[in-house]
């Protein structure tokens, strides 16, 4: 048996930059749009408002989604099993996010709830797959953070409005992704290979 280390650090760093861009975008866009109210509006509402925040939100969300797409692709290509599916669902979620931004910019239509639900389902699936992968690898803190994220999203979906669940669920996904990216950037994953298999 030989030990091989998988280096996911560049993808982890891309993910951390994405989280930073996302956080800055959300703060700037919400602060510059006084009509946006927590609990009554979704993230998509920032993008089709008529204020200055519209362009900031569109550019920021596209940049952060592109960086998260890179992270998801890296995780999918270098992992197996649940880790692979985690990366695939991140990629699908981010493709839908970018599509959503361009659709809103192009059409200016507020009727985007179906695409929002699809995005949130993909992101939730990514967190669930990530939780399974972390559980199998014995990463206890990461598994607990994933359980926290899934718990908050599902309980809010049942007990609150879809707007609150959308906003809080999206922020929870970003918090989970930040934890994952810090872990994969700092701790290289070890894979044990059979000598015969490697030959």
């Amino acid at each position, binding site marked *: 048996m030989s030990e091989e280390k998988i280096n996911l650090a560049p993808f982890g760093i891309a993910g951390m930059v994405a989280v930073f861009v996302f956080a800055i975008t959300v703060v700037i866009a919400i602060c510059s749009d006084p009509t946006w109210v927590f609990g009554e509006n979704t993230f998509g509402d920032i993008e089709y408002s008529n204020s200055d925040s519209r362009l900031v939100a569109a550019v920021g969300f596209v940049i952060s989604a592109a960086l998260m797409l890179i992270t998801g692709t890296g995780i999918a290509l270098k992992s197996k099993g649940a880790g692979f599916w985690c990366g695939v669902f991140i990629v699908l979620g981010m493709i839908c996010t970018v599509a959503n931004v361009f659709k809103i910019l192009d059409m200016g239509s507020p009727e985007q709830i179906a695409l929002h639900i699809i995005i949130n389902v993909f992101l939730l699936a990514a967190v669930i797959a990530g939780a399974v992968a972390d559980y199998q690898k014995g990463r206890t*803190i990461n598994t*607990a953070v994933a*359980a926290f994220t*899934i718990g908050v999203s599902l*309980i809010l979906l049942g*007990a609150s409005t879809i707007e609150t669940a959308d906003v809080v669920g999206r922020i929870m996904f970003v918090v989970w992704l930040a934890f994952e990216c810090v872990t994969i950037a700092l701790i290289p994953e070890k894979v044990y290979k059979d000598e015969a298999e490697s030959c």
Partner: protein
Amino acid sequence: MANMPGKMKIGMGLGLVGGILGIATSAIAWESTIDSMTAVGLNLLVAVMFFASAGFFQKNAPVAGTTGAVLAGIATASAFVCLVMGIMGTGLAIVEIIIGILLILIAACPTVKRYVDGVRSVE
């Protein structure tokens, strides 16, 4: 068999305190109306999850080490939802969240995981 780590006793105590606080807040949330059932139910969920986390820290641990952290994570999540929805008082919700984070850290502690997995392999 190895002695039970002292951290597990602290974890059990914190879990019980979290559960008792959850029961108390669910009693406070009851306003003799059907509308108050959401608040009562969510507070009961907090209590149940904290009691489940306390149960993980008993001498013959019923679940694997990582599962204990998952239980504590869901307990923290339910307390966080109560904070976001304004169901629980802000101060109490923050205390519950801090207890939940401490439970996650205790469950993730290597000595606790080693003890729990050791006990389960003996059984």
